[in-house]
């Protein structure tokens, strides 16, 4: 019998060998695919908002009483269990992203492309992998550390994937990756216009500063944020409310954003706009992740950040849209809003042009302030802090006065409060409360069922423990 008759190559799908050898853009597209994971539903959308915002004191579940968003009610009132779906989504989405980064980092060295590009791509993938692990370690503590493409037919790879590294080991890996990124990446201004949105040296330094802040390596935080400030790459956008509009995407304040494309073919952060849109009469979404009353009250009088962050029902938005007074919930997240009349869109509400801001310059200043204060340099801290407050005044006088207290504990509280109102709904609040060691205290004051020693970490997803045959260990208390 003729063997060749049965030898049919795959139709319309490239094999890895052919792809790597014949596609000139293979290297870049491998890394682009890592970025692309960040727009997926299970990465940075509903579940991620659930654990970073709804579980925090900044947001409530929202929506209608009967619509739980599968488990967002449980996240809101701390009744979640390891089986709650959001954890498995976040876990799975991030490991998918890590796998793509590993594909890139495993294959890039062998590809014959020019070294400058290769080094930059290695830097980008390293940054992204570090960011993914940073999210995981903040949410779950130590997690399995996968730094190579894992082979499902390899017993040792299976085994390795079922053992949790310690949080310290994960942080060490993150730092290694970020140092690689810092060494290999260009500054934001050195990128071609067409590559705007790729991670830069400044982004890598900012993330390393943030990672160091979580480990209380204050000298590192201060050094890196000083470098970013001194780099001249970034500045504060004068109008806080405009930060969330299309016009400010990748703008002067932007350090790292997830890029959304709102024209055909759409590549936006899936469901990010729709799941947080106003619900009910004349609404545009499901109405989840709504600003809490506690957050609304946290703003000082005259703080432009309140109106920049919170949509109140019955008000008119910047583009003229009127939010019905009969909307289901009293408040919605303005930072997730996309204008259909004044911004690029094609009617697709699932994938919009909204860029999700991950790192921006105001946070560099706040980290700088926090580190300086922790290191006893209160004057330096106040300088950075007051720059952020100054912008928040929006040009008004007599509101948000410059802070002057140099008492370390007072200043610490002031910086923390400033972080909250400046960075609300930017996916940090829950982690900040835990990092600051006051989560139990804050939640208790709100009457939430937060259990100290347990809820500082989210549970390892039950399906993953099951898949590991029980080898993956659960966090304490679950």
């Amino acid at each position, binding site marked *: 019998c003729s063997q060749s008759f*049965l030898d*049919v190559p795959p139709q319309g*799908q490239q094999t*890895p060998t052919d792809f790597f050898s014949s*596609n000139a853009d293979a290297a870049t*597209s491998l890394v682009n695919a890592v970025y692309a994971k960040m727009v997926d539903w299970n990465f940075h959308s509903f579940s991620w908002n659930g654990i970073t915002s709804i579980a925090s004191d900044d947001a409530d579940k929202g929506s*209608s009483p009967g619509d739980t968003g599968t488990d967002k009610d449980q996240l809101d009132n701390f009744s979640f269990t390891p089986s709650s779906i959001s954890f498995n989504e976040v876990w799975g989405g991030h490991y998918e992203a890590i796998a793509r980064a590993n594909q890139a980092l495993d294959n890039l060295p062998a590809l014959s492309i020019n070294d400058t590009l290769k080094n930059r791509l290695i830097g980008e993938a390293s940054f992204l992998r570090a960011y993914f692990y940073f999210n995981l370690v903040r949410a779950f503590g130590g997690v399995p550390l996968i730094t190579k493409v894992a082979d499902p037919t390899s017993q040792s790879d299976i085994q390795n994937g079922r053992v949790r590294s310690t949080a310290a080991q994960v942080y060490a890996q993150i730092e290694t990756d970020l140092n690689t990124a810092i060494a290999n990446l260009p500054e934001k201004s050195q990128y071609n216009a067409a590559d705007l949105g790729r991670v830069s040296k400044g982004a890598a330094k900012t993330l390393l500063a943030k990672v160091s802040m979580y480990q209380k390596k204050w000298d590192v935080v201060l050094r890196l944020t000083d470098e970013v400030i001194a780099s001249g790459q970034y500045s504060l956008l004068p109008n806080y409310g405009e930060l969330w509009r299309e016009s400010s995407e990748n703008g002067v304040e932007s350090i790292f954003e997830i890029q*959304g494309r709102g024209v055909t073919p759409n590549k936006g952060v899936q469901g990010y706009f729709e799941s947080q849109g106003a619900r009910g009469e004349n609404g545009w979404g499901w109405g989840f992740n709504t600003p809490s009353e506690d957050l609304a009250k946290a703003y000082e009088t005259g703080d432009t950040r309140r109106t920049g962050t919170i949509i109140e029902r019955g008000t008119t938005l910047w583009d003229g849209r009127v939010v019905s007074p009969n909307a289901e919930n009293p408040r919605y997240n303005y930072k997730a809003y996309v204008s259909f009349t004044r911004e690029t869109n094609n009617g697709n509400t699932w994938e919009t042009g909204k860029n999700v801001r991950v790192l921006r310059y105001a946070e560099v200043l706040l980290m700088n302030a926090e580190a300086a204060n922790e290191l006893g340099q209160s004057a330096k801290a106040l300088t950075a802090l007051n720059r952020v407050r100054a912008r928040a005044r929006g040009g008004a006088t007599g509101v948000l006065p410059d802070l002057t207290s140099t008492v370390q504990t007072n200043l610490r509280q002031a910086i923390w409060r400033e972080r909250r109102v400046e960075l609300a709904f930017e996916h940090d609040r829950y982690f900040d409360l835990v990092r600051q060691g006051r989560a139990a205290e804050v939640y208790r004051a709100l009457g939430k069922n937060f259990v100290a020693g347990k809820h500082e970490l989210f549970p390892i997803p039950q399906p993953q423990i099951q898949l590991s045959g029980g080898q993956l260990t659960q966090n304490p208390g679950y």
Partner: protein
Amino acid sequence: QDQQVTGRVVSKTDGQGLPGVSVLVKGTTTGTATDVNGNFGLNVPSGAVLQFSMIGMTSQEVPVGNQTVINVQLADDARALEEVVVVGYGTQRKIDVTGSVAQVKGEELARQPVLSATQALQSKVSGVQIINSGAPGQAPVVRIRGTGTLLGGADPLYVVDGIITEDIRNINTADITSVDVLKDASATAIYGVRAANGVVLITTRRGKTGAPSVTYDGYVGIRTPAYRVRMADSELFAAYSNEAVRYDNPTAPLPFDPATATATNTDWFKAITRTGFQQNHALSVSGGTDRSTYLFSAGYFTEKGILKGSDYNRLTLRLNNEYTLTPAFKLGHNLSLANDNSNLTGTSDPALPSTAAFSAFTNAYKQAPTVPVRNADGSYGFTSRNNVANPVAQLDYTNYRSRGLRLQGSFYGNLTVFKKVTLLSNFGIESNGSRAYTYNPVYQVSANQRNLISALNTGRSNSARWLWTNTAEYNSTFAEKHTVKILAGYVAERFQDNILSAARQDVPPQSNYFYLNTGNASTATNSESGSIQTRQSYIGRVNYNYSDRYLLTATARYDGSSKFPTNNRWGFFPSVGVGWVLSEEPFLRGKTPFDQLKARVSWGKTGNDRISPSAFLYTIASGLDYAFGANQTLQQGRTITNLIDPNLRWEVTTGTDIGLEFALARNRLTGEFTYYNKRTTDALFTRPIDAIFGDVDGSYLTNAASVRNRGFEFALNWRNNATNGFSYNVGVNATINRNQLEDVQGGLPINEGGLGNGQFTTRTAVGQPIGSFWVWQTDGIFQTQEEVNNTRAKVQGTKPGDFRYVDQNGDGVIDDNDRVFVGSYQPKLYFGVNGGFTYRNFDFSTDWYANFGNKVYNGKKAQRFGNENIEASRADRWTPANPSTTEPRASNAVPIASTYYVESGSFFRVNNVTLGYTLPRELVSSLKVSRVRFYVTAQNALTIKAFSGYTPELPGSNPLNAGIELSTYPVTSAYLAGLNIGF
């Protein structure tokens, strides 16, 4: 010159006159029928030969010569011995078959007003389960002897005149001579790696030597919903919804003002449905000479479905000719062309754009009766209190159309050499093109039902197949006792398909502009994919018959397929069957009541290769693009996202079959008992894998499961001979099947049956039938807050009036560990009853079908988000004043998957009742017409079911989530009148 012949036809058995015997001058349409006493009279040309025939009796031919009186004795048909069935690559006498083969004649199928033959097969054959869909143009799901696979595709293989295919909707039922169902491995192993789900062989009609025969069969009629679910009216709905809100917040404003809510009372089901219409016309011309035979047929079928806008039509043409070049050498062809057109109802190609119109049924079920179809100003009604679309608007804004053109044919040559060897070469071709589009206009009904930018999605799918079969068959008898038949063959096949799809936005809303060019070029997207599959096979079969007493069949197929990696490419599929015809044993002959008694046993291996080509290769996923730059320009993203098993192989089914066939009472009672046991190993399974591997769907396809189906089949048929113009027949058949997933190597159970609201309902787990419902067990209702407080194991937020769920493991928490298996959609027993009689010129027939022991899930009732409509039966719900123990309180919470929504799937249905009247021959012969019959028929006129939903026939998209009623097009009833004319 003509001469008058008279005579009498009597039964050889008892000498009684036989009425209604057809007396025909051979080669003509001239003829008559005997009267009540068996007498006949006829003018015949000289040299004529008379044919005497009657169902149940052996036909006879008598040359007239110069006789004027011809008396004839007809013997009881020893039908059971002479019946011939179609087996793979040939035919066999039924008595020689050592496996399980069932045959249904075409005329039995054509009696039912259905699109495809498999729909009419329901209730006819034991071991064959047919699950119908009500949607126009849809193929039913066919399961032969249970579901033997999880993901590999459980449909049987179809072979139409030797062409292997997957879909038989292109075949006009009127063109079918017989459908033969091969059920056990002894019968199917000759089809090797594709035979595990059973094989359905379809043989189309051919011309017969003689004068041209023209027939017309046609019917017209209506279709109506078989069942309506009684929904709440506005008053009940408003009261319920208000109550639900107040439980959550006693001071909340009432969502529905009781004073005004009842002003509108919309019957949404009525608003989206209509009386359907159906018609079918089939015309055929056939005939032949010694040198050639021909058959030409044309058919036209249309159905307007009960869902407004859903319709389907099909035109079929067929030309089956055979040319006898020399007595030993024949050439022939079977050609068929089918063109179909459908609106709002799907093509079979999942790659093409498809419709979401069927969800209108669910939306009609859920939409509030307080909402008008249209407001006074003409706009569509909606309520912002729920997320349900206005189903009338949904249908109005849904544009979906598909067309298909399919050519299928085979060309063959048949050469007999040395009288004992027959060489056959058959080249089959199939070309199938379909096209479909969806157009989504700009509209705004409500915030939840709107579309801001119009879009046209269009797709083309083309496939081509050739299949070349070459066989040689040797047939000989030695010493008058040893009959040997040996078949050897080689088969090669190539299949190629290609799917192209494209879309643009900003296309104008008139249907004459539904072309891509009218859209905005800058929004254009397109994609193309395809596959090529090749196969090579060697087949062999030996039949041995000793004295019609001992039978042996051995078959084997050596199959090679491009779908598998080189090291797993070739497979060997053997089978062996033995039979013992006890009734032919000299020591038993005449000493038992049996006219025929045969025992048979078979064993064999078959395979299932329904898996996408190249599934064993790592490939690069494309389209993982990401926008960079100020203009959000996409840059290509590609990487490996999907883990694969490099050693994938086909599924293997090993089966044993033990049967007993018998005939009693002068062959009037025939029957068959069969036990079967088949086990599928290496069943494809998406093995869940730790998320750390980063697989895109958290699992990879591998051969990891084992499934067993075992059961009993039994069939009994009684057919009496005509006396006094009356004859009747009754048949019953029944199947008991037990399905079980036996093993999954290292894998976890698969949860499926998601309702889109966070709840899933089925689990496929070891020890259970595939796709078993896995839910919480309700245990009454909490009556008081005190009772709630005193119960540890409860769902978060439980209030009085909510269900209590059984804490199966007693750990004080209601979680997945407390779910229980409560049955599956797979029936434990199904049976059919067929019967009919003819009395003089009247004929009557009926088919009944029943299905027992399976479960269905009321998905539309369980898929709530808040303020959807409820069924009228919810009037009896729990309230503080009405302490129900079965119906929970009003609530807007997402319903928890529980036994409350699991209902019995058992049903009994009168599939068909037909009453016909044939005009007396004397009357019609004067009109130069040989036969005129009028009939009325009712399809699905009566259904008795336990399920409270629309239909218990719920095939689902795959065996893992079958049996859930959600967005289901219900099975309908039809009432039709028809006409058969023969010239």
